[in-house]
């Protein structure tokens, strides 16, 4: 058994898949370089990313899979689950080995797995579309901090671009330390360097935020409190829809 390491990008993964077929190998595990802990007698090789090869694999998949299935596969990559590559390779092999469309072939464990994992990732995507809270900075950028369970920023960029086409916005993934920034033209990936003493959560003091920001947060919190019907309180239901790990990013829950 050999382990091939790739640079962590989706292209890197696909070009490793290309090499699997090129070298007719079946005894290889593909892993992300940065996450991999090397075993004592493990045979490890780094596979460089060749975009042309990655494109060939993707083009091959495009011929066999619908857009939705391609997205599901991409979701598995974004899930960043340890060892998820094995399932993705299994899925890709199964797709290429069959003439007909196999995406509803849930008897196959890889097909089933891809469908299950992608559902989790897409649920997180939907949650992020709901739970992003922008705060207006004094530089006129709508800024939001998140730390989604899965790496869903690439999936939500389009939604926010369509919706907030006329405002500068930035959604920053605190855990993965990158963000997507929209500059009224297109969305780009950025990295921020925070000062050591910088507190990313909202404080009315400090001169980072626009003057009206405090007012609208207060109004939103007021609104949120008033629409609650006290005689029908049901905190369990609230928690079920809005798990506690998201609260620190939600204006209305932080105030609580």
């Amino acid at each position, binding site marked *: 058994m050999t382990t091939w390491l790739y640079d962590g990008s989706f292209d890197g993964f696909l070009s490793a898949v290309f090499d699997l077929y090129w070298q007719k190998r079946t005894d290889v595990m593909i892993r992300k370089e940065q996450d991999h802990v090397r075993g004592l007698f493990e045979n490890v090789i780094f596979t460089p990313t060749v975009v042309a090869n990655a494109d060939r694999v993707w083009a091959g998949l495009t011929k066999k899979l619908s857009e939705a299935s391609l997205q599901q596969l991409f979701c598995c990559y974004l899930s960043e689950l340890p060892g998820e590559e094995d399932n993705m390779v299994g899925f890709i092999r199964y797709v290429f080995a069959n003439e007909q469309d196999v995406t509803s072939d849930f008897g196959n464990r890889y097909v089933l797995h891809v469908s299950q994992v992608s559902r989790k990732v897409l649920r997180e995507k939907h949650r992020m579309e709901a739970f992003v*809270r922008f705060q207006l900075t004094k530089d006129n950028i709508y800024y939001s901090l998140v730390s989604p369970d899965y790496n869903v920023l690439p999936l939500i960029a389009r939604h926010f671009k369509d919706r907030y086409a006329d405002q500068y916005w930035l959604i920053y993934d605190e855990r993965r330390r990158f963000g997507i920034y929209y500059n009224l033209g297109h969305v780009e990936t950025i990295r921020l360097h925070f000062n050591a003493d910088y507190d990313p959560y909202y404080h009315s003091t400090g001169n980072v935020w626009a003057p009206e920001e405090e007012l609208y947060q207060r109004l939103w919190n007021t609104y949120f409190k008033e629409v609650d019907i*006290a005689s029908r309180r049901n905190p369990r239901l609230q928690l079920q829809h809005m798990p506690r790990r998201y609260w620190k990013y939600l204006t209305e829950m932080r105030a609580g």
Partner: protein
Amino acid sequence: MERIQEKLAILADAAKYDVSCASSGSDRKNDTKGLGNAHPGMGICHSYTADGRCVSLLKILLTNVCIYDCAYCVSRKSNDIKRAAFTVQEVVDLTINFYRRNYIEGLFLSSGIFKDPDYTMERLVRVAKKLRTECNFNGYIHLKAIPGASDELMQEAGLYADRLSVNLELPTEAGLKLLAPEKSRPAMIKPIRFLQSEIIRLEDERKVLKKVPKFVPAGQSTQVIVGASGETDMEIMHMASQFYRQFQLKRVYYSGYVPISNDTRLPALHSQVPL
């Protein structure tokens, strides 16, 4: 507390018993690089209150001043509560600023009837018009259609709103007579019928003409209060199915009556809310 905050508190509180949170089913794409997108797809619930209900729209009354005295309503004329009213600009600012911060999917605007139905409806329409034309807002707008307002206003409302709804208030006419004697079923049906015929007319035009304006793209809905006037389940189901069939409503919403007054015509305070 600032005045705007106080107003918001009063007018959000007064609107909270209104159901209908749907923000999906419309088709208003952001083609103009403006703000907002109500493209078909899933609706989004942005938050959940402590009672477990979702918050997806900014749901407020324009004013809770009302000339009617419906027994089941917190905003009834005889109720001794704080009254407030937003200006058109205030509602527009709130909507835009909440929307830009990704708090909401759009606006749900209802109102108590001040002066007369036309006057009230005209204000509601002005809010929607301002959002659409001046702010280039493509988010979701749900307006209450006020029974008794003129057809011209209804027509205009339909051009700017994604959904319009006329509240039927109570499932039966007898209940209406008992609890809201100033309102009548035929007066409520009139705007529903008008809107339905307009929707159909414009749909027909769309088949032959290229450019027909969007008209209430998410259709009509209505709401009834359940458990206030002692109606049976069968009566409710009959009424709902009749309205679904006859007027092609997208939805009939049911609002469980939460006891709010000591009126002897109504269930007593603290009685169970029907689920």
